Every structure is written in structure tokens, then in C-alpha cells.
């Protein structure tokens, strides 16, 4: 597969997962949360420093439509992670000799 096609398809899949499929994710507590609840140390958890942030808990503040809220949060996360990690790896890569 050509690089261009490979990256375009992969990015499309990634955006579809974060922007679309994420709505169907299980909302049950994750492994650590469940263990902490069952054993009893869940109360030790402090509220997150950024719990009032615009994208806290993978939802856009003020957007009531759950599907839209999590979808937009997912797409923003994908773009932000892509920009930061891509920028980092681009900066530290070995420059190819011309």
C-alpha cells in the first residue's frame, strides 16, 4: 500500500473510532475504579484539577447531545494527540542525509 493511502485510511479509522464509536463505549467503571469501589478506597480519590475543563470526562461543556459531545471531544483529542506526538517525533527523528 502506498504511504499516502495507508496514512489516510488509518487517520480515517482513528477519527471514526474517537468521533463515532466512542459513543457506544461501556460506561461501567474501569478495572481500577471497580476494584477501588469493591475494596473501599474509592473515597480517597480527589476531584480532578481540571474537572471543570471544557473537555472534562470526554465531553464538550455545554453540549447536551451526548453523541455530539463525546464525538467532538474525541476528534479534538485525536487532532491534539496527533499534533503533539507528530511534532515531537518529527523534532527528534534522525534527519536523513540528502
Amino acid at each position, binding site marked *: 500500500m502506498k504511504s499516502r493511502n495507508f496514512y489516510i485510511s488509518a487517520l480515517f479509522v482513528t477519527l471514526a*473510532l474517537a468521533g463515532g464509536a*466512542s459513543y457506544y463505549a461501556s460506561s461501567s467503571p474501569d*478495572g481500577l475504579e471497580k476494584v477501588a469501589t469493591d475494596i473501599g478506597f474509592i473515597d480517597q*480519590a480527589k476531584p480532578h484539577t481540571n474537572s471543570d475543563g471544557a473537555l472534562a470526562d470526554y465531553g464538550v461543556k455545554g453540549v447536551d447531545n451526548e453523541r455530539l459531545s463525546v464525538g467532538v471531544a474525541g476528534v479534538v483529542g485525536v487532532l491534539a*494527540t*496527533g499534533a503533539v506526538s507528530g511534532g515531537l517525533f518529527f523534532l527528534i527523528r*534522525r534527519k536523513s542525509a540528502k
Partner: protein
Amino acid sequence: MHIPDGFIDIPTSTAFAALAGAGVAMSLKGARSSLDDKTAPLAGLTATFIFAVQMLNFPVAAGTSGHLLGGALAAVLVGPFTATLSLTVVLLMQGLLFADGGLTAIGLNVFNMGIIGVWVGYASFLLIQKIFSGRKATVPIAAALGGFLSVPAAAVGFVIQYAIGGTGTFSVTAVFTAMFGTHILIGIGEAIITGLAVGAVMASRSDLVYGFKNKKVALEIRK
């Protein structure tokens, strides 16, 4: 698996932040040799894909869910040092933008998912690929098994942190039993996703896959 603020005391969190910081510094150095114009885009894509798939919690047992950690996946695709950096970027994004994973717990989380998960996953992958005599067809299977093992390993990382500086007063044995048991189940989901994702990249661009093309590097590390 993302530890919130408050579960582990500040001195322990600080110590693990220092350990994680040292691991990230080593990874910044180590990643250079595997990152070039051809592989840097795959590394960015891997981090981004892990962010996306970490949003997709799957049910594992009554009232419990899990999600991909991605350490083994990243290590097989782009090498362990770049994998640690990828997971670190993902965890920073989650903590800073999405309030997922406490900010004082960032070192604990990078240590468990970005270092233990990556290296246990990668070492298991190498060992299993050796048993399969390094065949191309077995790369996704070995990656899946590495992914499976990486999840309970990362969970044990939390148990160690809890044993050192847990703010709860409950027995470490109870925490270990519950964490290990639950995360073995989550490991099955990790194995499936890792196997499918590595399989898809192997089928389309096996020339980019670190764990396949760098067999020599793998052999040297094993010595």
C-alpha cells in the same frame, strides 16, 4: 487504569514521577535511532490511534469495563522507546484536556502504562516471536500475547505503588488479588485489539513494523 489524585500519597507519587521522568529521558535518547522520515509518521499515528482506542471501554464482567492500554501495540509497531513517548503524550493529553488521570498521579500512570506495560509487552513479544522462529505470519499473534501479559503487569505496578504509598488502609493482598484478576480479563480485550491492529499494519505496510523489520536489533537486546 488511570490513577486519580488521592489514591497514592504525594511522596510516592513524586518518587514515581522522578522514575517515569528518567524513563522518558532515556526514551527520548533511545527513540532517535529508530525514528526517521519514514517511521516518524507511523509513531505519531500510533500515539493518536492509542488515544482514540483508549476511549472505547469494553465490558469485561458484571459492571466492569476495560480499555486498551496500547503499550505492546506501540512497542511492536514503533519500538519500545518511541512507545514510551507515545503513551506519555497520550497520558498528558488525557490528564490535561480530559480530566482523566490525576495530575499528581501522572508519574504513576506513565510508569505503569508507559514503562511497565511497554517493556513487559515488548519483552514477551520478542520471546514469543523467538519461539515462533521470527516468522512474519506470527507477528500479530506474538503482539497479541504480549498485549495480554502487559495489562496484568501494569496492574501489578499499581499494587506496588499502593503497597508503598496507598492512602487506603486495606490489605495489599486484597488489592493485588482484585487488580490481577480483573486485569487478566481486560488483557483478553487488549490481546484482541493488539492482534487486529498489528495484523492490519502487517498486511498493508509490514516494512514499517519495528518488531518485524528490526529482527537484528531484537536479537541484540536479547543477548
